[in-house]
């Protein structure tokens, strides 16, 4: 769409700028400030330059947390994307059944994140949980508080349960946008349902799937409350992801300098993915209009 050139539009975005500056720029400056100083107490501080950045970049536990985080996000995408597309293909096209499915699907997305953790504690505990009790009665020892593998399985189950509906919703919206004429043409050509999926549905869903992919990647990259409630980062450090480790340093040990340096590096990683996401969104926007 052609837009009007008018720099007075800045006045319209002024309220947003003021609010977001207050809640983003000022705190971020505080972080930058911390990251280059060693703070002993009120009024006692020492400029240390890039010392904290060096320390953080060489911190073995941070490397472990980063790899753990990448493995987690990667696994999440590998499971949620195909599953989400599959479920979206099963959804009814219209009528009350479609509405009802959408509402049930969206339910997990609206539960406070720590309650998600609570639900899964209750669900997977070996003594009172349905899942834990069933698996244990099948003869497989399962306890997410003691065993690292079990903790990961529980976390993955929870994450897939929590966020696959988002992928379904987006994929479903993409599927609904395909004109009926495409399917009719495919029918005349005698295309198999696999061919319809491969050559009509999948290309048409490309835009929404890109959005889903990046949203899922970033949100899983920032995950905090759910593993914090469910496992507290344990057993040991088995589920200590980046955010959990950061809060441990910042609030637990109150090491402001390293925590701030860590925050900035974390933020830069996010910024990089944000930029990719933005490019993808722009591509989706122009693709629709042409």
């Amino acid at each position, binding site marked *: 769409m052609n837009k009007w050139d008018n720099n007075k*539009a800045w006045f319209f975005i002024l309220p947003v700028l003021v*609010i977001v500056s207050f809640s983003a720029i000022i*705190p971020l400056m505080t972080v930058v400030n911390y990251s280059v100083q060693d703070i002993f107490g009120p009024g006692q501080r020492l400029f240390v330059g890039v010392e904290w950045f060096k320390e953080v970049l060489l911190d073995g536990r941070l490397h472990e947390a980063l790899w753990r985080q990448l493995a987690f996000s990667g696994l999440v995408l590998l499971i949620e994307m195909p599953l989400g597309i599959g479920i979206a293909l099963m959804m009814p096209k219209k009528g009350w059944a479609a*509405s009802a499915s959408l509402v049930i699907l969206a339910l997990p997305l609206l539960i406070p994140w720590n309650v998600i953790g609570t639900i899964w504690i209750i*669900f997977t505990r070996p003594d009172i949980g349905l899942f834990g009790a069933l698996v244990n009665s099948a003869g497989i020892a399962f306890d997410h508080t003691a065993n690292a593998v079990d903790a990961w399985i529980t976390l993955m189950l929870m994450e897939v349960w929590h966020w696959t509906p988002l992928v379904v919703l987006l994929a479903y919206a993409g599927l609904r946008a395909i004109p009926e004429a495409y399917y009719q043409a495919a029918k005349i050509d005698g295309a198999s349902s696999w061919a319809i999926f491969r050559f009509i549905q999948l290309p048409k869903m490309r835009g929404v799937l890109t959005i889903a992919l990046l949203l899922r990647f970033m949100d899983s990259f920032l995950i905090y409350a759910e593993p914090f409630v469910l496992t507290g980062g344990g057993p040991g450090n088995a589920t200590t992801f980046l955010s959990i480790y*950061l809060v441990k340093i910042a609030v637990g040990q109150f090491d402001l300098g390293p925590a701030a340096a860590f925050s900035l590096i974390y*933020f830069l990683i996010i910024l990089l*993915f944000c930029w990719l996401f933005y490019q993808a969104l722009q591509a989706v926007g122009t693709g629709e209009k042409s």
Partner: protein
Amino acid sequence: MIIRKRTIGLILYLGLLFLPIYWMLNMSLRTNADIMGTFAWYPADPTIANYMKIFTDSSWYSGYINSIIYVTINTVISLLAALPAAYAFSRYRFIGDKHIFFWLLTNRMAPPAVFLLPFFQLYSTFNLIDTHIAVALAHCLFNVPLSVWILEGFMSGVPREIDETAFIDGYSFPRFFIRVFIPLIRAGIGVTAFFCFMFSWVELLLARTLTTTAAKPIAATMTRTVSATGLDWGLLAAAGILTIVPGALVIWFVRNHLAKGFALGRV
């Protein structure tokens, strides 16, 4: 036959989706002794004692009231600030528009953990710790950008000719915006309000850090169900079920726009 298989698959998935929630509901209707003593698929002797405790104990129900207050304040602030901004982004080209738009997005994606300490310091300086407005403002960090993005998506769907015609007809800008434009994007505003509500409602880390007692959210209250006899699972489950209710009530109204909201107005 394919259709039938699909339906069965979908019902199976939705069933599995609902199962953990059902299990919590099951727990919430039983006493703690019953939960620890016997394993049951359904409450044999359902009791609403857990819910009664939450509704009668002010340290419990004030958590809900606190959450609702700051979520409401946040939604109002986000909408009021985002409406003109979204209009500017959807209608005008101006210096730095693309960069500002991108910068807003980065705030939606920023890890709350990064902002934890600075927020605490900032709000301490202004003496705002443990007030509803502090949490509402903190949540603006991600809700204002989100609102701008979603609203911009909806506004761009309104043809520009409508604005032009109204201005030719002699409408002043404020009058046009309130009388003509806002009614046109009513659905968009509803969806945006829903998403602000939702993301403020589900967030815990910032809300918990910025409050101690007077504005403590329900999600934080839930961490103190440990008593002398161990965790009170029934009470915890009942509190959890009650946090799902508000979302479940409003979800019906936005069911067809959910995808658009999650895709930041880009579907």
